[in-house]
């Protein structure tokens, strides 16, 4: 909401019409060199060039603009916005994201599976400013990249920097789930949840996914698994981060849906197939329904002063007017 902290100063803008009125009525006159160069009762001096006539008008408008900008800045323009303030722990959620090369397949909305997942995670996090989000990536190994944090800027920035293949060519689902659970078991004051986004079946890692899934119900952590992608031949384009080599072509996409369902069952969680944009969107909707967003404790009014842009604009207008009058039109007096 835009507001003025000293609106009375706006009355100073009336000095502009007053100035022109007084000059027109002859109460004020310009200083001039006492030299007559024209015939008595002859035509007064006027610029013949249209460029100069335009320059004269622009110069005057710039002075008036500069004056008005100062008046507006003096009246203290301020932009108010309400910010929600959160206290307490809120819900905590860790996204376990498969970044094996097959996640580069472009079978959901003509972008890669990873990019599509990123998009929905962004939207989900934006809707829940009071919740904590963490990030675990998995390939042939798994690592905690961001612990559950309310600093969404850091979480989203790391999410955006995920590169396909950076954790190796493999899918260690068990390791990913175990790492995520290990960083949530200490929290007992709020609801915790892990969401696994994968398009593959477990083929590496030291921990069996079913064993890892057992940790979830024991510690009251909710588990959601989304199987991303379609089956069959899908286009893929991916640059191996280790060699820099670009792979482009088609991939025979196949994943073990039964195995993912079993992991969800062992973890007393839910499994959702996400083979299209709509189904992926509905996965996040269901996740949102299962885990209510934290409510703000109160709102705070944040004020952003807007005076400085007007002061800078007034400097610009005054300098423009001076340059036109003195350097282009050659005025002296």
């Amino acid at each position, binding site marked *: 909401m835009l507001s003025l902290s000293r609106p009375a100063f706006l009355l100073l803008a009336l000095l502009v019409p007053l100035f022109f009125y007084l000059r027109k009525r002859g109460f004020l006159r310009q*200083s001039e*060199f*006492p030299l007559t160069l024209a015939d008595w009762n002859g035509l007064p001096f006027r610029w013949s060039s249209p460029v100069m006539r335009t320059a004269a008008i622009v110069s005057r408008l710039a002075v008036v603009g500069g004056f008005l900008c100062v008046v507006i800045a003096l009246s203290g323009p301020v932009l108010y916005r309400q910010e929600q*303030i959160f206290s307490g722990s809120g819900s905590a959620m860790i996204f376990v994201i498969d970044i094996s090369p097959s996640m580069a397949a472009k079978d959901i909305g003509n972008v890669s599976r990873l990019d599509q997942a990123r998009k929905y995670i962004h939207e989900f996090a934006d809707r829940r400013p*009071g919740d904590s989000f963490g990030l675990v990536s998995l390939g042939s190994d798994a690592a905690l990249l961001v*612990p559950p944090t309310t600093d969404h800027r850091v979480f989203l920035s790391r999410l955006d920097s995920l590169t396909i293949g950076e954790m190796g060519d493999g899918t260690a689902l068990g390791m990913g789930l175990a790492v995520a659970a290990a960083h949530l078991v*200490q929290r007992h004051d709020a609801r915790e949840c892990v969401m696994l986004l994968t398009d593959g079946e477990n083929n590496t890692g030291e921990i069996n996914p079913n064993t890892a899934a057992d940790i979830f119900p024991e510690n009251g952590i909710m588990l959601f698994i989304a199987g991303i992608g379609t089956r069959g031949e899908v286009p893929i384009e991916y640059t191996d981060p280790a060699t820099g080599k670009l792979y482009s072509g088609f991939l025979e996409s196949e994943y073990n849906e039964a195995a993912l369902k079993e992991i969800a069952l062992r973890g007393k969680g839910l499994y959702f197939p996400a083979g299209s944009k709509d189904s992926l969107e509905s996965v996040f909707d269901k996740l949102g329904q299962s885990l209510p967003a934290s409510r703000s404790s109160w709102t705070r009014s944040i004020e952003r002063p807007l005076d400085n842009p007007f002061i800078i604009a007034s400097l610009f207008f005054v300098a423009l007017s001076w340059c036109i009058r*003195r350097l282009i039109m050659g005025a002296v007096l």
Partner: protein
Amino acid sequence: MTAFFEHPSILFLALAVVPAALIFYLRFRKLRSTLMPLVSRADTAAIKPLSRILRIRSAFFALSWILLACAAAIPRWGNELVAIRQEGSSVVFLVDISRSMTVSDVAPSRLGFASGYALMLADRLENTRCGVVLVKGNAVLSIPLTSDHRALADLFSALSPAMLSAPGSALSRGISVALEAFPSNSSASRTIILLSDGEETSGSLDEAGRDLRDAGVQLIAVGIGTREGKDLNAFPSLDEPRIVTTVLRDDLLKKAVRLALHGSLYVNGTEAGSAQRVLSAILPAAGTEQKLVYSSKPVYRYSFFLFAALFCFCCGSLAGGIAWKKK
């Protein structure tokens, strides 16, 4: 100058009046020398007041421009107190991992001591969100504010100067990064625990202390090391060792604490009971009760400069370019 203006570099715009005045003077002199022979004797008397009027007008316009440039630089002096509602607490550990922290005037080394100290504090801050910023020649947010104390413990156990490549010790840069680690939408009180020997190779801890005061953030500086210090090879990559003695600069840390206000505290980490003093300074804020704290905010004075600039412009328009018409 930076204490009085938020953007002091804009003040250079005020210098534009010098070339402008020079151009005006040269042009007017040329005009007068060209036209004076053509002016009639009766009008010659009118030239003198015209010169005076133009000088006054130019002075007013120049002053107006200078004041406008000052206003654009955002002048500020004095402080006002602003009430902030808080609930809970959040802590950012700012750990100095510069090479001077590898000396062993405290056992096992300053960095090893800092690591153990931070681990112990984090263990006691159960319901507090904590983050970690590492500082050397540069500073990075290694762990954002989180309740996951396991992640903190993992990092503290692995601290090493090799974690950052930039040489030096930019503690003020570390404080800037730590300040950014507090999300604006959190109601928690804000504390930075600086674990350092106080040696600084770039930046200014004083300036950082003032920034903390303005942001309403508490600084707890834990000095690690001894005043006697110990020798360190400053450039181990050179063939000839260059030995410098690195000591605990508690004077710098204490000064930053004095400037930061908001219950800021300095403790010597090696003193018995220092950790308890640190916890006592933080834990009152860690409860679930709401409280009001006061943060100081600079008072901006641009409106005075703007009004003066407007006044000078009007005076210049009336006294110089415009004159009352004689009836």
